């Protein structure tokens, strides 16, 4: 069906070669001053012997290359992006403008304290928002992303137990529906993972959890609301049981957008939680980062928080504590990355919370939950809802509605691409068959949701007629059709090579 053209382009769908196939030697996209005379031989005999092999391009070529590449991408700016568990909300451009102020963007992390007071104020102010919103007294600001924050929280827990002579506590209880990062982070701390089953109602099986608790358990890692989009109704009993066993309650904060401004996780019994600033706090995901994963900690865990920390001296000047000796009486578990955290992401997040305010954040979580429940209500009879509502900020369907149609969850999602939508999360969580997890976020208008609902219902009706072929062929209208992932893995081509 593909209409052919002489160029290979199709109207606004422009083919774009690799940058290595455009460039050649002898051009430049940057004009640089002449090299001054070298006053002494200081290269230690290590001057480069061969050229890098990088192509040379002019500025207009580079600009066109990346503009064309961008046109092969779908972002939140392009349209509805109901990717469950990812909180693809609007990214206010105010954050981009603020992060580019020279006082933030052109600031070195090792500059003297007198010249960075505003930056430390940014970190401190955001920390105040995060501790107030969660009710926990301390926050480690340096983790670089959600998984890094999980690891940071678990390291603090591990350090606590080592310090208290309970280093044998190394078992971590993780529900089967958890993000893959949870068990992976636990393994990095030398902990073992013990899975907790779910009930028919999609929640933690409290009896099974209690049966697994013991004096070798370090913590429970629980996402709440969980990855089925459901609030853990028995969370207080869960926390109580975990604490009674002498263990900590770690919460995966990936779904914090459901409750921000309405529920403080400290009031649920949580001892530690990372916060994905690139989800709940609206900083752009950037096609895979950078994110930031500040980790809030209870009073018991706070002394073990990593370096560096922002501290305030008696004269009111803020300073960075970068070594153990700067924090007498504290036992920081170490350093998690270079310098002081994802500062540029923090500036954007601070712009967001200042813009939103405490009242706006509560309104946002309310609308996020409203939107998900609206999808659940309007799609429940056309798809197959995995659990009864109300849901929280995302709603989960499974593939029972596709039974016997020959259409899979994957096919259904790919058909949505041809309709102009980014698909929902597929095949996650693993606790239902053929999962379709939709998270609309508060950024979407009723008109957008109504149009999406109409399209999903029409596709479901088409699937149920047994007309599977259009689904199998989807997507047909994208720059590329379905890509052969098996070929990519079996014969890996992971870089361009000259002459290839």
């Amino acid at each position, binding site marked *: 069906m593909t209409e052919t053209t002489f160029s290979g382009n199709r109207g606004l769908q422009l083919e774009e070669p690799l940058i290595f196939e455009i460039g050649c030697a002898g051009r430049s996209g*940057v004009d640089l001053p002449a090299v001054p005379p070298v006053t002494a031989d200081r290269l230690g005999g290590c001057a480069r012997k061969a050229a890098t092999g990088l192509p040379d391009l002019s500025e207009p070529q580079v*600009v066109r290359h990346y503009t064309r590449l961008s046109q092969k991408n779908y972002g939140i700016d392009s349209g509805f992006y109901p990717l469950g568990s990812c909180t693809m909300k*609007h990214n206010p451009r105010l954050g981009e403008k603020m992060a580019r102020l020279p006082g933030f963007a052109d600031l070195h992390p090792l500059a003297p304290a007198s010249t960075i007071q505003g930056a430390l104020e940014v970190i401190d102010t955001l920390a105040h928002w995060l501790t107030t919103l969660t009710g926990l007294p301390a926050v480690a600001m340096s983790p670089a992303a959600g998984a890094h924050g999980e690891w940071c929280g678990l390291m603090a827990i591990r350090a606590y137990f080592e310090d208290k002579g309970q280093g044998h506590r190394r078992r971590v209880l993780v529900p089967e529906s958890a993000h893959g990062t949870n068990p992976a982070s636990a393994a990095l701390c030398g902990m073992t993972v013990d899975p907790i089953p779910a009930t028919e109602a999609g929640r933690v099986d409290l009896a099974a959890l209690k049966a697994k608790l013991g004096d070798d358990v370090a913590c429970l890692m629980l996402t709440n609301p969980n990855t089925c989009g459901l609030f853990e109704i028995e969370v207080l009993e869960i926390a109580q049981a975990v604490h009674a066993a002498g263990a900590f309650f770690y919460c995966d904060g990936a779904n914090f957008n459901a409750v921000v401004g309405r529920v403080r996780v400290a009031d649920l019994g949580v001892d530690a939680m990372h916060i994905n600033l690139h989800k709940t706090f609206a900083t752009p995901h950037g096609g895979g980062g950078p994110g930031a994963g500040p980790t809030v900690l209870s009073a018991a865990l706070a002394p073990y928080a990593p370096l560096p920390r922002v501290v305030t001296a008696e004269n009111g000047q803020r300073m960075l504590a970068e070594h153990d000796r700067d924090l007498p009486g504290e036992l920081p578990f170490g350093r998690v990355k270079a310098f002081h955290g994802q500062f540029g992401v923090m500036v954007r997040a601070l712009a967001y919370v200042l813009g939103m305010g405490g009242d706006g954040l509560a309104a946002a979580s309310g609308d996020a939950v409203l939107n998900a429940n609206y999808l659940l209500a309007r799609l429940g009879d056309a798809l197959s809802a995995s659990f009864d509502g109300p849901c929280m900020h995302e709603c989960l369907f499974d593939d029972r509605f596709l039974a016997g149609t020959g259409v899979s969850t994957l096919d259904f999602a790919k058909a949505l691409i041809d309709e102009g939508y980014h698909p929902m999360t597929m095949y996650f969580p693993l606790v239902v068959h053929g999962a379709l997890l939709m998270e609309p976020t508060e950024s979407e208008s009723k008109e957008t949701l109504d149009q999406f609902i109409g399209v999903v219902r029409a596709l479901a009706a088409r699937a149920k007629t047994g007309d599977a072929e259009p689904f199998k062929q989807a997507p047909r209208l994208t720059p590329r059709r379905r890509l052969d992932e098996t070929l990519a893995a079996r014969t890996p081509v992971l870089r361009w090579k000259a002459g290839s």
Partner: protein
Amino acid sequence: MRWLPHTDADRRAMLGAIGADSIEALFRDVPAQARLTAPLDLPSGASELEVERALGAMAGRNRAAGAGPFFLGAGLYRHHIPAAVDQLLLRGEFLTAYTPYQPEVSQGTLQALFEFQSQVALLTGMDVANASLYDGATACAEAALMAARVTRRGKMILSGSLHPHYVETVETALRFTEFDAVRLDPDPMGFEDLIGRIDSATACVIVQNPGFFGGVRDLSALAAACHAAGALLVVAVAEPVSFGLIEPPGAMGADIVVGEGQSLGVGLSFGGPGLGLFATRDKFVRQMPGRLAGQTLDGDGRRGWVLTLSTREQHIRREKATSNICTNSGLCALAFSMHVSMLGGSGLAHLAELNHGLATQMEAKLAAIKGAKILSPSYFNEFAIHLGDGTNAAAIVDALAAKGILAGVPASRFFPSYPELAPVLLVAVTETVTEADMTALAAALSESL
């Protein structure tokens, strides 16, 4: 609220469709005693103008690097970023996309990552690079863990040339594992004997080149010694502009090259986000951490890109994954790639020569100061200078900052327990430094010594 589209009429209509009385009713699964009944003690929402005022005031309480002579480095370098890079990065299709798990609507990000991986492989002289990690320090920690997987050994030797933040991050990552980090003393002059420390328990030696104190070393003999003992050589590079002038680690025999990519495209941003570079040999690719973009064909037989070899990763392998990393530094990798594309091979070589040439000019000026001595026997664009016995580099830096000159990074900032390093200052010179800046630094230092 400008970021929330619903009108109250919308909300009522939607609640009607749901069959709920209020939004609060949708939160009924939250235990009543855990639901906030009064607003938190936080400010109310603010207009763009008000937020700009508040954050502008905070930014104004910092001293931007561009405000005067500036010589700070120590793992983070100030370079001029071509205007086109930031303009292109702001395209919403790049900025507001998720991780490219749906390849048909993510070919832009995926092709850009494939190009990034190719550029990093060419720069480092390695076979294959991943699609980024958080920063140079965490990349170093991942390299140590990978070396343990490859060699099934647990001793990591950390050179005194390695950035102290990288050392501390590796130590933290290994803290609750069965592996051990052996940390060598800071080594401004390049005297340490690494080869003599390698034994049959050694998983890897981790060195930095150019080193934290500036020194550039030929690592070929060290690589050979590592390989003879069945260990890996990991080379960290904190200043990627050096790739334009210095022999790449791959050509010296490195098994894993990690780095901080921030110099190209990313900017200072008070040290974060950074860009973790990670490259290795083909034979180790299945032990690599992080995402990989790979080439394939689509249903019509056309070339395209996907994320691949994901059976290494946490979302598939869970606790047996090679790393827990998920979100990485995608947009920073794109910025790096754009800057490298703008420079090209010729431009990068020119930029590197320019940095090095200016640094030698700076050395000549500072070496003329009475009492001062350049420690680094070799360097790229940063060197260590000893300001004289009994001097305190940190105090001098503070005094010069008061005069509007950011002179460099005192070594004591990282090594407070090494009094012999108190007089040592790291001075970085990039293309952003002018002749007048260098003259000003030399004059001010000369005055204060």
